[in-house]
């Protein structure tokens, strides 16, 4: 019987039968020199991890567990809860704790997955579990089913332990240094092309990153062995050990800004377009987002609130607020659909509810430009009667008037719309708010609202100052879609020429570019985006300052402007 068991054991595990694989590898900790491995030397190679079951006979004291005082570690975006390391990982960590072998939290070395992050915060106190303290791939937990992860397939090289927990041994076979990958490190599968990570982490593979043939810089190529972004795949941005303490196993230093990772390649180095140039322009989305972004932010849940609910909450805009690097691709779409660059990002819909992924481009913008309580007026903003910073209300289809971002405009007749626009068209936020050197402005920079030389991140010039001399350049933004010739001719129902050219009134003197919300105006007084600039348009006879739409091509004004009284002057 014992012979049978012995034979079975010998046949069972290749590792048992081949101590020669460990010998000569980094895990060969024996002190014997080179030469044929002999019997006793075989034993010496194994006992560093496989401690022999022996010792003197004294029993050790043990007590039933009086009750755990230990707080398991948690992250805002992770569903399973790792506890203290267990199982095979304990053996690994017994050397890889920084003493016998490397095990540290700097970016080059293997990091530790600790237990409770120091101290216990009483349950009544609001603690920000969204601050992810993790630097290394979590271990010693049974993965909970989630949309973005799944257990490895039954006979895969990547394995959970017999308790269904993920340990160091899921990705590393401590016996075979080069068994699974030419990279070594005892990996069971190569990391190139996401082979190892994709065993458990679901990814559509549709992102530009997954297929990009762009070459990595020579230094990085030499250090990592990956030639292109597609080959590096996950490892272009992530590290399994020693990632940023902010979480997500990102390959970025603790004190680097959130955007530092993206800009390593999208700052003119690897990717074709240079976003850093745009971000450096005077009006940009790269308000030093610094290190404020939290992957768990949202309208509910453990992370910080977004849209922000407190007027004093800091605002931030970093790359990943609008772009999901796992899904972003170059697919072009038509308004209002969110294009490939915004694929996978969550947003806030017209009703104010979170939607994942956002279907429309404006839903991504509404995360910060709608219900957020901490919106401040842009410097130099025009003073309106009842300004409404919540753009969700301004672009709502029930509002008196609006540019057609979320729904076609309410005016069935808009003379002079340039093709391809007509009265049923929808436009993107980014048709007006975009890079001043992007394709929309005739340049070759990146598309999108990264930065502009014009205030309010506008793609083209738009003067709001009273007394502006009219020209194609002064109101270039409006003339992008509204034919200047038609607007200033008699085909426009309202005498624009008299006001804009002769009177040198800016478009903004009478029109609010986004629109007027239901709570800020009425269908008659605020049709056609009319919302007077209070510093230019004064009260007329009887103290009234109002516009009245009387019909399709007719209306009247009661106000005083440039010294001229309008006593219900009609057009």
């Amino acid at each position, binding site marked *: 019987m014992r012979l049978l068991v012995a034979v079975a054991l010998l046949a069972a595990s290749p590792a048992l039968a081949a101590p020669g694989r460990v010998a000569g590898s980094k895990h060969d900790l024996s002190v014997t020199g080179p030469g044929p491995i002999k019997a006793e030397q075989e034993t010496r190679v194994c006992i560093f991890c496989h401690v022999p079951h022996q010792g003197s006979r004294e029993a050790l004291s*043990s007590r039933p567990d*009086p009750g755990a005082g230990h707080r398991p570690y948690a992250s805002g975006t992770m569903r399973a809860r790792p506890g203290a390391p267990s199982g095979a990982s304990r053996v690994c960590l017994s050397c890889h704790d920084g003493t016998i072998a490397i095990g540290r939290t700097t970016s080059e070395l293997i990091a530790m997955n600790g237990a409770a992050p120091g101290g216990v915060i009483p349950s009544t106190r609001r603690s920000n579990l969204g601050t992810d303290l993790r630097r290394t791939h979590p271990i010693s937990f049974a993965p909970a089913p989630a949309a973005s992860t799944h257990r490895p397939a039954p006979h895969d090289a990547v394995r959970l332990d017999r308790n269904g927990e993920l340990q160091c041994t899921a990705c590393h076979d401590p016996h075979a240094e080069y068994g699974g990958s030419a990279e070594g490190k005892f990996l069971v599968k190569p990391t190139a092309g996401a082979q190892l990570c994709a065993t458990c982490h679901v990814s559509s593979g549709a992102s530009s990153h997954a297929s990009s043939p762009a070459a990595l810089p020579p230094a990085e190529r030499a250090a990592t062995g990956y030639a292109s972004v597609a080959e590096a795949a996950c490892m272009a941005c992530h590290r399994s050990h020693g990632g940023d303490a902010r979480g997500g196993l990102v390959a970025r230093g603790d004190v680097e800004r959130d955007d530092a990772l993206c800009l390593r390649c999208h700052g003119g180095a690897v990717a074709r377009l240079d976003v850093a140039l745009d971000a450096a322009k005077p009006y940009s989305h790269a308000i030093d987002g610094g290190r404020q972004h939290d992957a768990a932010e949202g309208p509910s849940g453990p992370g910080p609130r977004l849209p922000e609910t407190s007027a004093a909450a800091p605002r931030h805009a970093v790359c990943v607020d609008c772009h999901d690097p796992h899904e972003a691709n170059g697919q072009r779409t038509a308004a209002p659909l969110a294009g490939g660059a915004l694929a996978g990002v969550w947003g806030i819909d017209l009703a104010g509810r979170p939607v994942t992924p956002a279907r429309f481009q404006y839903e991504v913008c509404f995360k910060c430009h709608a219900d957020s309580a901490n919106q401040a007026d842009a410097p130099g903003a025009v003073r309106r009667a009842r300004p409404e910073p919540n753009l969700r209300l301004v672009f709502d289809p029930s509002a008196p008037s609006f540019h057609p971002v979320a729904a076609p405009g309410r005016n069935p007749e808009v003379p002079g719309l340039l093709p391809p626009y007509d009265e049923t068209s929808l436009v993107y936020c980014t048709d007006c708010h975009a890079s001043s050197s992007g394709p929309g402005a005739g340049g070759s920079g990146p598309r999108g609202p990264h930065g502009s030389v014009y205030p309010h991140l506008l793609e083209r010039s738009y003067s709001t100052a009273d007394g502006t001399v009219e020209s194609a350049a002064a109101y270039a933004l409006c003339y992008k879609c509204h034919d200047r010739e038609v607007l200033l001719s008699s085909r426009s129902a309202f005498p624009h020429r008299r006001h804009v050219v002769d009177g040198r009134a800016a478009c903004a003197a009478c029109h609010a570019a986004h629109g007027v919300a239901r709570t800020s105006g009425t269908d008659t007084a605020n049709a056609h985006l009319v919302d007077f600039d209070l510093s230019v348009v004064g009260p007329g006879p009887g103290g009234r300052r109002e516009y009245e739409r009387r019909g399709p091509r007719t209306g009247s004004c009661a106000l005083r402007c440039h010294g001229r009284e309008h006593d219900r002057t009609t057009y």
Partner: protein
Amino acid sequence: MTPAAARLGALAACAALACAHAPRAAPSQLPDLRWPEGPAAPRARLARLLPDPQAQAPIAPAWRRALDAVLGLERRAPDAGLRRPFGVLAVDGEETLVADPDLARVVRVGGRGTQRTVECKGRAWSAPFALARAPSGELLVADAGAAVVVRISPDGRCAELGAGRLERPTGVAATADRIYVADPPRHEVVALSAAGEVVARMGGRGAGDGQLSFPTAVAVAPDGTLLVVDALNFRISRFSPDGRWLGAFGEAGDEGGALARPKGIAVDREGRVYVSDAQRDVVLVFSPAGALEYALGASGEGPGRFVHPAGLAVAGNRLLVADSLNGRVQVFELIGEAP
């Protein structure tokens, strides 16, 4: 008083009473755990946990709380406490020094749980692993990440010792004229003079007499003998102060007095040797001759249990254990020892 007011008053009084009876956690209600169990006389008992799991979180001053309430600031909880305490040292009275390599911090924990970091001007910690105190009162910190031993004098001045001579120092101990540093990747214990010059090197890779395999920690016995955790030879080696090998005890194994992954070492004033085993999750207590006297602790997360116990320190009748992967330090009282 109107009936309505009387009712209101009674309600308020009830509420106040209810609040008065709300359970207020007394500090440190630890279970009474003693080792060894059973008929043998207990030799150690659990005295404290640091940080105290039942202590209130630090309360900000009232003006700060009011300001936060008004402004609605969402301040993140500061990263206080210990993440992976590895080295410990008992200092005057109830104070404890803890080295945390993951937070790159050396912390002085007061008797009431208050924490103050120990810093050097112009120098940031890289990965402090071990602490020791010289008889002259200076603090020695083995900074493995920076490959130096930092000496901090009582007036706060810091000096780096052994620069360029060490690879990854993870253990340090001091006598009146020598500083001993354990350097695992070089399989050596280096003896430094007070000025920081290398005076002697003990070890060299091997399993024979006088050789070492990844020595992780050192301690000095009362008679001046140097004890070294010879981790991958699964033994505790003894050296004389001038570097002669005096012998070793211990064997590889997972029961009784055998060592599986010895990590930290400390010696009490009677010469008893305390060794933490990071794989067995126990602290083994040996007689000066190397015979097992008793074992302390077990694997787990509750009080009196360890996950990867690392550094040890003994002062008087206090034994401190850095329970590294539980993120805490456990303090035991050695029964029968004088404080």
